[in-house]
């Protein structure tokens, strides 16, 4: 982390309300960083999905566990970390929600959406064994289109699904 990086970190309760809280917090950072409306929507949605995953799958809705949200604002991009206290998971094991047999599944689209809406996305195993989602979006160019798409992730893009 360089001296130009701004860092924000918050520990959230494992409860539904944390999803909205995390989304609102990151939206404020994204707006202040100059992202336009479309990118703010994508960032907000991705944060929601990351925290929903941590809440439901990672921490299995156990209130004694916490969700750790961190945002780094570098000169180039906004990086978001969402870490849970669960058992972790392998991205390759996540079913493809676009596969014919999964289209009527009532869950399993969160990771797909984060991949679709952010420029970079990865899941690593945290120091204490939980899953840590790390995703980023490139900052809009100075003086660029405020409402345009600054990065590559976007609603028109169908991301490659590895699973």
């Amino acid at each position, binding site marked *: 982390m360089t001296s130009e990086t701004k860092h924000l970190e918050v520990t959230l309760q494992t409860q539904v309300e944390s999803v909205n809280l995390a989304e609102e917090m990151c939206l404020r950072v994204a707006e202040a960083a100059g992202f336009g409306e479309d990118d703010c929507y994508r960032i907000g949605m991705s944060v929601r999905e990351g925290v929903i995953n941590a809440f439901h799958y990672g921490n299995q809705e156990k209130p004694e566990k916490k969700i750790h949200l961190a945002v780094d604002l570098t000169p180039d991009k906004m990086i978001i970390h969402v870490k849970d206290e669960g058992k972790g998971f392998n991205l390759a094991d996540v079913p493809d929600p676009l596969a014919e047999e999964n289209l009527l599944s009532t869950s399993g689209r969160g990771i797909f*959406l984060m991949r679709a809406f952010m420029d970079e996305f990865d899941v690593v195993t945290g120091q204490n064994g939980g899953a840590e989602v790390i995703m980023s979006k490139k900052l809009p160019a100075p003086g660029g289109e405020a409402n345009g798409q600054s990065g590559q992730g976007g609603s028109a893009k169908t991301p490659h699904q590895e699973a």
Partner: protein
Amino acid sequence: MALHATHRDAGRVTVVDLSGRITLGEGSALLRKTIRVLLDDQRHLLLLNLGDVDYIDSSGIGELVSAFTAVKSRNGDMKLLNLTKKVHDLLQITKLFTVFEVFTDENTALRSYN
């Protein structure tokens, strides 16, 4: 904005007018309850008007799919009306346009149940 749901009869079809956000928590729960009540009331032909739904997350998508399969399991049908751009794009990238019948005109949608 919390989700609001009202319904009205249009011949054999029940139109469900939704407004707000369908997201994890109250939004998804209200949609689930609304569909369950309608199905229990023997209303099996549903048209969900999403014209005032400006936001759906993965939980909301899951709830829509769940509603669709519940209606189908009763030999009914559930279609969607008036998608906002964000919801339209979301259904497109998740390939759910291949599952749901989507309309932009209510009369056309209602005629399609015949």
